[in-house]
């Protein structure tokens, strides 16, 4: 068992609390799923953890929910710490909640939802990954996972606007501009580690003539409490963003090239934040959608001489493709950008998770070796395409494939859509710096 410094191992388990969580979730769906699973094992081969580790039967989705949430219900919440520690290994270490298995189960049993519920139970007893715990403190204090202050964020935006003035004339990053069409929200990795990402987005929006703004708060669209099992905080985090958008009176919230942020904002967030109808209060648009529209409508044009010659492939992030519905848009963008596109197999909504989802990347070094083992499936998929560039509109896929590249010596370059669009787009004359 790895060291889990976050685990308060000496504390007794609060069975009452566990019972409460189990009761609150004991609806018709979970009851039915747990009961009618035919134990047919069809889900096993859909899961990349299972495939990557020589078909270890303990990694089949059904086994994972049966021995975690299933066991919790069977014991009516009367579980001990040792059991929860075992669950910890499974619900964080062996599932990225990618939802692929539900499509392969005759009954469409939503295993990811059950694993998430088991995470909530573990979280309630202080048993959850240290890497996620750190971010929760930051979210609580500052509203974003890296603890960036409002001043630092706004300054970074201003700095980036200045920095890219010699690329695109008149480039700005408007802050808190009310009534605009898009409020652009990002992953804190961007202002903190890759500020040029903000600059690239600003270049694209300026060239496209977009009416947009960055908010000074609620700009972090990530939602790690959602993966840590802290549903109350997850609701607050996503609500920060919704509220800011309502306050600014913007038409839509635009999500950066990040997968789980889209899942949170558009699909799970409304429920976490208490919108009973499951609809976000403001329309949510993912970058893949908007960038595709720019290219389709000619608001951004690609310089034909700059289109990539080398073979490229597209990594469907689970939460953009399968769980976001944007696989065709992503592919069409790639076809604008590159001449030799080679799809992975399987692909689109059937694509395998890269192994970095479900909170895995921020879960940190404790989980890295597992990421490298489970990532074998993705590494082989990439290798089989013969591509030299892997394009992916997701920060977690980006990091995971970067690590896999090293581990499996894939010899590829990983790129985001923004990056390639900025390299290849035609800057119209009136925006060319003198």
């Amino acid at each position, binding site marked *: 068992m790895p060291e889990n410094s976050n685990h308060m191992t000496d504390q007794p388990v609060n069975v009452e609390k566990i019972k409460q969580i189990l009761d609150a979730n*004991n*609806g018709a769906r979970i009851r*039915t799923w747990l009961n009618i699973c035919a134990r047919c*094992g069809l889900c096993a081969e859909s899961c990349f953890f299972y495939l990557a580790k020589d078909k270890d*039967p303990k990694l089949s989705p059904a086994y994972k929910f049966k021995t975690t949430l299933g066991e919790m219900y069977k014991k009516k919440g009367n579980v001990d710490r040792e059991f929860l520690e075992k669950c910890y290994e499974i619900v964080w270490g062996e599932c990225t909640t990618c939802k692929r298995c539900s499509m*392969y189960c005759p009954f469409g049993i939503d295993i990811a939802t059950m694993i998430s519920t088991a995470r909530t139970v573990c979280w309630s007893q202080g048993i959850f990954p240290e890497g996620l715990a750190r971010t929760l403190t930051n979210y609580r204090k500052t509203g974003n996972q890296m603890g960036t202050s409002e001043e630092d964020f706004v300054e970074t935006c201003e700095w980036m606007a200045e920095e890219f003035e010699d690329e695109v004339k008149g480039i700005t990053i408007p802050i808190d501009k009310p009534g605009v069409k898009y409020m652009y929200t990002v992953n804190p990795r961007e202002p903190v580690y890759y500020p040029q990402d903000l600059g690239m987005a600003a270049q694209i929006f300026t060239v496209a003539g977009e009416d947009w703004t960055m908010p000074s708060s609620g700009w972090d669209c990530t939602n790690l409490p959602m993966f840590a099992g802290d549903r109350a905080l997850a609701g607050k985090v996503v609500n920060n963003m919704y509220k800011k958008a309502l306050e600014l009176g913007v038409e839509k919230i635009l999500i950066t090239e990040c997968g789980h942020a889209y899942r949170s904002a558009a699909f799970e967030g409304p429920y976490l934040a208490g919108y009973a*109808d499951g609809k976000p209060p403001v329309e949510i648009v993912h970058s893949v959608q908007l960038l595709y529209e720019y290219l389709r409508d000619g608001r951004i044009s690609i310089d034909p001489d700059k289109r990539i010659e080398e073979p490229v492939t597209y990594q469907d992030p689970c939460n953009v493709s399968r769980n976001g*519905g944007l696989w065709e848009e992503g592919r069409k963008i790639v076809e604008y950008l590159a001449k030799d596109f080679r799809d992975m197999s399987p692909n689109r909504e059937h694509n395998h998770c890269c192994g970095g989802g479900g909170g895995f990347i921020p879960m940190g070094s404790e989980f890295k070796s597992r990421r490298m083992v489970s990532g074998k499936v993705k590494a082989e998929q990439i290798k089989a395409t013969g591509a030299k560039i892997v394009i992916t509109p997701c920060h977690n896929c980006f990091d995971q494939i970067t690590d896999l590249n090293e581990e499996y010596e894939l010899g590829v370059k990983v790129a985001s859509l923004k990056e390639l669009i900025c390299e290849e787009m035609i800057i119209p004359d009136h925006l060319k710096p003198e």
Partner: protein
Amino acid sequence: MNEFYEILTGPGLWIAFIIFIGGLVLRLTYLFALSREKDRVFYNHVSLSWGLRSIGHWLLPLGSASLRKQPVFGLVFYVFHVCLLGVPIFLCAHNVLWDEAFGISLWSMPDKWADVLTVVFMGTVIFLFIRRLARPEVRILTSFWDYILLVLTLLPFLTGFLAYHQWGPYEIVLILHIFSAEILLIIIPFSKLGHVILFFFTRAFIGFEMGGRRKARAW
């Protein structure tokens, strides 16, 4: 012996059917009430076409990517279900009983077909049983009860087959036949076999969730 037979084919049959149908209705009613409170997500994203397609693809032989990955199992599983439903309902001898008991009768298949299909069915059960033992990812999930359920599914067919051919002590075999079928009917609503009806709801849900919300085909 005759008394047993009378009880099993008279009140026994009624009781079995009442528990079978009543149990399913009760279970559905209970789940429906619960879902109104706790599963809003089921109702929020209803999409008839995605729901129906999600169900339909799993009713077709090899209609799903999942079964196409295991075509042998996929076909055996399909034949298993078709025989399981088809033989008892359309058997000539049963139609006579339906007529006596409920005053309805359906099309009857020739006895020869029923005989062949019964043998085929028993073959599929043996296949499923062996698969459960042979494939580690299935074996690890399977409890003792799962094996019992498969045997229980086999029993009415095995005994029906023996009775038809008058092999073994006819009366005892016939009583066992009726008894095991009634037991199976009674168990369905309260076990994983509840999937006979719940399948339509869980499959529809994943259709709404993946397709209705995300345009992703869940099959």
